[in-house]
């Protein structure tokens, strides 16, 4: 079986590193992007199985990325989990209605992330 892949999109190198360690522990092959535009270029070439997505980023934010991703051919396939410090209920609802499969509020830990992956059926 080909390993499942996860693209981690966050402008913080530290967050990417923390998330990568957790997601690799869930047996995913991990790639990283530092903003939405980079992530979109990546997805246009190879669709990952899961995208872990920060909201506020330079160049292109997470919500814009998500809308454009979902418009790409095959862009409805990846499970997208927002992972951000934005915790207001109405913003979470906005992300979900834009097509996010789930939402992780920072701070998070391995248990939270793996339970979210399980709930969206990624593991």
């Amino acid at each position, binding site marked *: 079986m080909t390993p499942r892949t996860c693209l981690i999109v966050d402008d913080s190198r530290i967050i990417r590193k923390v998330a990568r360690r957790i997601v690799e522990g869930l047996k995913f092959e991990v790639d990283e992007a530092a903003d939405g535009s980079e992530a979109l270029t990546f997805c246009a070439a190879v669709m990952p199985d899961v995208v872990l997505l920060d909201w506020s980023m330079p160049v292109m934010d997470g919500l814009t990325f998500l809308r454009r991703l979902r418009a790409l051919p095959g862009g409805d396939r990846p499970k997208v989990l927002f992972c951000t410090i934005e*915790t*207001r*209920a109405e913003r*979470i*609802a906005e*992300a*979900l209605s834009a097509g*996010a499969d*789930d*939402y*992780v*509020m920072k*701070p*998070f*830990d391995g*248990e*939270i992330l793996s*339970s*979210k992956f*399980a*709930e*969206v059926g990624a593991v």
Partner: protein
Amino acid sequence: MSPEDFDRLQSLMATRAGYRLTRDRMKLAEHRLGPVARREGFETVEAMLAALWARPVASLGWAVIEALLNPDTWFRRDRGTFDTLSGELLPALVRARAGKPIRIWSAGCSTGQEVWSIGMAALEIGAAVEIVATDLSQRALEKARTGAYTGFEIQRGLKAQTMLRWFDQAEDAWIARAELRALAHFTRANLLTPPTADEPRFDLIFCRHVLDDMDAGVRGQVLDQLERRLVDDGCLFLGAGERIGADSLAFRPVSGRQGLFVKSPTVLKRAA
């Protein structure tokens, strides 16, 4: 804390709560008792324990016991259990009880995540339920009653969609909606204490990740009591991976259903 202190804690936990305080939890015990000592006005954990051994005051004893119990829980823990609950058990019970509320006992509910997970499952399929939730820890029950969780707690096991549907945001907390809270009644109970005989029995009992922490010597006794509180066609959920083995003949596992047990034929024959 001295080894003697730990020995006495072990025996306190065993006799009062049936709880197996293993030696590897000595550091953890010291860590947990620090805040209790401060709250109760003692300089150190050692001073608090010395006072407790000299004059066993019930309130202090229980404060110590509560702090040493294992409160760890999360939403929809053992997901398979909740899939069985909402996909099979609740629909079957709704039909069998013909509109009468289904009685559910969350035994060892800790801070309430299990209770709300059951409640959400019931409301989502329109099943009428009454949940009695008990725990030994008064502090855990106080938190459970508030139905309020931190961002960290609320997302452990819960999808964002489900969280938004059943919990209201209030500053940093997420609080269970009134319709959810109306389903549950919280009360303190010790599983070692025999229940009064004439209380109505339950259709479902959840007693998950409780027995594994208990002394082997009391597990059978607790299981036999759960059996007496369960209707004959009722079901018991233990934690995923928890086994009954030689502890009790009251239940048999249902194959292919994680953590699910029904009454054994021996028990049913005795009842008939």
